[in-house]
């Protein structure tokens, strides 16, 4: 069994050209920042008003949403899938268990670019915001990721 015809670069190029605001989150964001952790997942947090544009970009790569845009807005998350499965968060804001709210707009304003290849960059939340995303569900698996990110934040001039 393999990954089929999914082309990761094609997806990132399509998203860059979609006009939608999006952030790569989850463990893949840690990898992008320079932490070699294992993951097979793609997780994005997108502008709730950009669902249709994001879906069009995903569809160009053979990834189809599992909900209508309205249903996705109602639940705050959905999946696009085909030869790969991509989790998409669309909530305008999410809170950690201890009540710290992270708004998409704020995460977007503090985002950083990580070069995917020359001419194409990925948008990643700042390290403090990425830590907050890891605190949303506070599962045991997030603890190591939070620890790694907090270590990484020590070399940042202003995280």
């Amino acid at each position, binding site marked *: *069994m*393999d*990954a*089929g015809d*999914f082309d*990761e*670069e094609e997806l990132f190029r399509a998203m860059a050209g979609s006009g939608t605001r999006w952030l790569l989150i989850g463990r*893949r964001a840690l*990898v*992008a*920042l*320079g*932490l*070699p*952790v*294992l*993951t*097979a997942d793609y997780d994005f947090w997108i502008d709730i008003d950009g669902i249709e544009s994001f879906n069009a970009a995903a569809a160009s790569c053979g990834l189809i949403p599992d909900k209508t845009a309205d249903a996705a807005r109602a639940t705050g998350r959905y999946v696009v*899938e085909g*030869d*790969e*499965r991509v989790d998409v968060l669309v909530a305008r804001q999410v809170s950690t*268990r201890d009540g710290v709210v992270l708004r998409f707009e704020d995460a977007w304003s503090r985002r950083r670019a*990580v*070069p*995917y*290849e020359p001419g194409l960059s*990925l948008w990643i939340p700042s390290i403090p915001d990425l830590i907050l995303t890891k605190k949303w*569900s*506070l*599962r*045991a*698996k997030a*603890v190591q990721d939070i620890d*790694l990110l*907090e*270590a*990484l934040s*020590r*070399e940042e001039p202003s995280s």
Partner: protein
Amino acid sequence: MTPRQKLDPKIRERYERALSDEEWQRIQALPRDPESDEEVLDLARWFRRRYPTAKERFAYVRRKYAEWTRRTG
């Protein structure tokens, strides 16, 4: 689709379980270990130097994930 690693159910349960508030507070109260942090930073510096772009980093992780799933079936 990238084949996902099938974890033993008991391991998956421990990995996926939600922490209690008390557990999380205990973890947060632990002091950071500067030596451990420096090891993480050394690892990150090597990874970024060896694989300068996200594309290369994702390819590395894909290879390692495939090796892991092949080894543990």
